[in-house]
């Protein structure tokens, strides 16, 4: 027991323990929340996408521009207005949120969002306002969901573990760097998806489905989770049996459709010319014409491009079809597995109880999102946030009985770190280089992750796989995790000191992409295996009624 304590010790854990010892245990949550907000705000002091970079600026200007155009134009024109200059290409809820933010902002200062005139506006105070909107939405949606998740999902663990999970999850560096550094609102989408998981856990499937539809209509990227969520919900219908399941299925269909339609109201008949507006919305949200990938993403297409030259060999249309088939095939695996497990599981078959397959949901979400990231069309390096979210949720379970001798935590941190590392080109351009180094290092330190001191059997298994990484260094080095970090470190140094050869100006970037893609690909395979394993566990245990640990304390 003592050894276990030693193994899972970390500065964050020590701090929580100390707070409890001095009788301030009930303050831990508040201090954690305050610190999380403070860290976000400190990151926000740094640069953002397209800062002082006229004429096009970047994501910051895009979001500001959307606030401007939604504020001044009727909804029917939103998706048509001046498309070359950051035309709106996110789903309607983003537009509504932009409108609210723009309205509040223009109450403070009209100039910030004056139509046309405010393009590229970035005064100190407007910058603070924009940053504050991200923080406010984060604190309103994502942060409470995380806190709630740590309480409910880990209800059978000690309070200390729950607090620790909250710290780990809230300070996940990748999301903070992108949302509060680079400037985006991914936290809203992720928060809504997370809320959907929480609802499923409480057996409120209809509410969860509505939340998930909202998540997708905030940002279409939540589609990455759709196979998993669909698999869970359909699986639950199977699990409930024909009578109950049919009712639930109909209910879900109705609720999802209604939610979707209600978010689209301003673009539907009485308010807008019918097919054109809606078609334009869809066309803007799913831009097929933009090419296989932009910039340098650590996914399959981009990593294999230097060798295979996809874009030279195949037409865009073919590529769309190829990547579509690849993605659907890859993302269908976790979904089908979810269905299979739900079908076979026993338990108390009631509608207001989560189905036993719930434990699989984060895994399935990770696998399906990672499949999208690796194989789909038009992926951004920021999209890695989607696979990261469910994987990060699982980090909270460190040190449980289920986790003993398990490598989830190590993998989770590795993929998280790699996610940040592959975002280097983006973040260094944004003036977030400092936070790029400091924040992940601090998070790793805080949660007690030290790649030099990891010890478990999975290394050897992983080693055989990692030899596939096309780098001699990895092969001569004994330890794959260390070698992937070492590689990234070497790449950093090379990038800073050695100019790439003239024939390959992108050499360092491509090398980074290759390393990232290698790790993500392996993580995906590992995730699939883990999902299978967890599924077997459920299949074995749930022939009988659900064990008490699935019942929350709150009931």
């Amino acid at each position, binding site marked *: 027991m003592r050894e276990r304590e030693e193994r899972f010790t970390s500065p964050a854990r*020590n701090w929580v323990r100390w707070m409890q010892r*001095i009788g301030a245990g009930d*303050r831990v949550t508040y201090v954690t929340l305050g610190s999380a907000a*403070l860290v976000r705000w*400190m990151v926000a*002091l740094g640069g953002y996408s397209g800062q002082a970079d006229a004429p096009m600026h970047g994501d910051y200007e895009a979001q500001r521009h959307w606030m401007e155009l939604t504020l001044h134009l009727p909804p029917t024109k939103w998706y048509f207005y001046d498309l070359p200059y950051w035309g709106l290409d996110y789903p309607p809820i983003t537009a509504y949120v932009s409108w609210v933010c723009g309205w509040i902002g223009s109450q403070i200062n009209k100039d910030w969002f004056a139509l046309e005139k405010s393009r590229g*506006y970035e005064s100190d105070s407007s910058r603070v306002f924009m940053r504050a909107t991200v923080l406010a939405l984060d604190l309103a949606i994502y942060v409470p969901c995380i806190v709630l998740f740590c309480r409910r999902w880990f209800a059978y663990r000690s309070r200390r573990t729950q607090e620790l999970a909250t710290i780990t999850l809230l300070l996940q560096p990748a999301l903070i760097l992108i949302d509060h550094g680079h400037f985006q609102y991914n936290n809203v989408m992720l928060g809504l998806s997370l809320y959907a998981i929480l609802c499923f856990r409480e057996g409120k499937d209809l509410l969860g489905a509505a939340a998930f539809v909202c998540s997708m209509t905030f940002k279409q990227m939540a589609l990455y989770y759709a196979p998993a969520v669909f698999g869970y919900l359909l699986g639950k219908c199977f699990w409930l049996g024909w009578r109950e399941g049919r009712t639930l299925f109909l209910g879900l269909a109705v609720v999802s459709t209604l939610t979707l339609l209600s978010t689209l109201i301003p673009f539907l008949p009485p308010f807008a010319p019918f097919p054109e507006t809606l078609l334009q919305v869809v066309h803007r949200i799913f831009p097929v014409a933009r090419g296989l990938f932009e910039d340098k993403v650590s996914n399959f297409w981009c990593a294999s491009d230097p060798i295979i030259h996809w874009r030279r060999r195949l037409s865009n249309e073919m590529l769309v079809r190829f990547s579509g088939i690849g993605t659907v095939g890859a993302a269908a695996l976790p979904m089908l597995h979810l269905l299979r497990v739900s079908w076979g599981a026993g338990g108390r078959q009631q509608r207001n109880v989560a189905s036993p397959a719930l434990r699989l949901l984060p895994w399935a979400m990770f696998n399906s999102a990672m499949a999208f990231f690796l194989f789909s069309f038009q992926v951004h390096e920021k999209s890695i946030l989607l696979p990261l979210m469910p994987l990060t949720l699982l980090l909270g379970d460190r040190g449980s009985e289920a986790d003993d001798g398990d490598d989830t935590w190590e993998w989770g941190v590795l993929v998280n770190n790699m996610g940040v590392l592959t975002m280097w080109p983006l973040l260094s351009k944004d003036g977030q280089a400092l936070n790029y180094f400091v*924040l992940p290092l*601090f998070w790793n330190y805080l949660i007690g992750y*030290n790649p030099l001191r990891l010890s478990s059997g999975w290394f050897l298994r992983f080693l055989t796989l990692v030899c596939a990484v096309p780098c001699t260094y990895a092969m001569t080095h004994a330890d794959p995790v260390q070698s992937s970090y070492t590689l990234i470190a070497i790449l950093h140094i090379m990038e800073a000191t050695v100019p790439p050869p003239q024939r390959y100006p992108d050499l360092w970037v491509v090398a980074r992409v290759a390393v990232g893609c290698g790790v993500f690909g392996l993580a995906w395979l590992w995730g699939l295996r883990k999902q299978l394993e967890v599924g077997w566990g459920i299949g074995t245990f749930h022939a009988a009624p659900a064990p008490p640990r699935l019942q929350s304390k709150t009931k």
Partner: protein
Amino acid sequence: MSSPPSTLSRRRPSGLPSAPSGLSKSVEIQEARTSKEPWLTSEERDVLVLSTVMKVVLFPAYHSTDFEVHRNWLAITHSLPISKWYFDTTSEWTLDYPPFFAYFEYLLSWPAALIDPGITTLNNLGYAAWSCVAYQRWTVIISELVMAAALLRFVRSSSDPSLQRVISASLFLHPGFIIVDHIHFQYNGFMYGILLWSILAARNGQLLKSGILFAVLLNFKHIYMYIAPAYFVYLLRAYCFNPRGSFLIQNFIKLGASVAGIFAVSLGPFLAMGQIPQLLSRLFPFTRGLNHAYWAANAWALVTAADRVLLQCKSMQLVRLTLFPTLLIGAKLRGTSLTINTSGVESTSRGLVGDTHFAILPNIEPRHTFIVTILFQLIFLAKLWRKPDYKSFVHALTLCGYCSFMFGWHVHEKAVLLILVPLSLLAADDYAHYRTFVMASLAGIVGLFPLLFTPAEWFIKVGYSAIWFAVVLPGLARRCPRPTPTWIGEIVHRLEGLYIYGFVALQLAVTAFTAVLAWKSPDPGAPPEIPLNLTTSGNLLEATTSSPLQRSSLSQMEFLPLMMTSVYCAVGITWAFLRLSWLYIKSS
């Protein structure tokens, strides 16, 4: 300058619990090597990492003109011969710290010139490239390790290490240092490190060393003269006299010679060049007003506020009198209203540097403040003379600084650290001390908030301070349980609680007020105007010349939230002063 770290590492108690080996890999630990800490426990390492990370992340935060002041000093010391250091007027930010600090800047200027020659170019006024910001911010973090080392040694030689560790960590992560050093930009952490080290020497009975260190400190920054009387009395009584009262001439000579030696090293070159008068004129410019641009939360803030209130009453009375001319003949007028001092009414731009003239109350002159300060200090010094032990010394030290802060001429709000740092060492003595510490710290830290007036830093100063209090206070409180109070004690306790919660209301009011003002005033930040915005914000609230009032016609209104903060904090500071004085005087 190089002496502190070496002496520091020389005397380290051995046989202390050692941290698990193999952990010294992290970057921060390598920085810590300047303070030679192979015995860092894991908690201490955590604090070091946490503080370093936070300070590094704050690099892009707002910095005041003090940043340019120090950059200019780097340039002066690097590009001019020593004979011109105290004569250069290329920038308005002339060198006005004592020679050791100039030497310190000289040392820092060499790496600076290597990293970016732009930093040390004399005519490069206002240079703030990223290399310059990062370099200067790093020097603050690294020089602060002197404080880290001193605080660690406090823990090592403490009888209650776990409590002392809380106190040490609370000082190392003190919001005051974050606000003043790591955002506003100064080197207080480094100098308070020397002070703490000197106090530590006093605790360990090495009084000579303590005196020498204090002399060194005085030659870094002369503001520490505020607490010099306590040092003087304590060293004289405890080092130069034996307990029975006979004079130890040898010790006296040793101490005197050492201190004189330090001053010779510091001032010698300038004495040789005949520059002492020039140097002194730079160090002590007696042209400033009673209050600083923003009133430090001291007794004069209360007095000035009282004057303003009286003035308001009077002017209302005047209006009434002019409205009813018949009353003009009344005796009232002759008696009171005409005594209004016109320069005092004009001085209600209140806060501009220059003299503060009172409209109603008698004017305060430097000698008045001097006399009041000395009188109060004498009370505590007399007690110290009769009771020359370590605890008494720290009390007297704190109270000496406190008197100077309370009644001094042109006190900076930053000087409140002079109270809060030594007071922290007493924070967990008993419940009364703890309570005094809470009051003084709250009022003192909130009193520092106006230093950072940019909207982006609002959340950092408020949020960080709140977190600091939430973690530190329970850590200290558990060691000092509350004794059963008398009924009057209970009433006072309740009132104090009310005052403490009042800070929430104060912050809300001040923030709302400032926000409304910003709302009403035009936003200076439209894209083409950004440079203008930068230059104005650069000049704001600065030590020597400007104030936020010069910004716009809304100046009078803008000063109101500052005044509210200042006066509200002054109440707490004054109350804590009375509490601490009482505790010290009645202690046996």
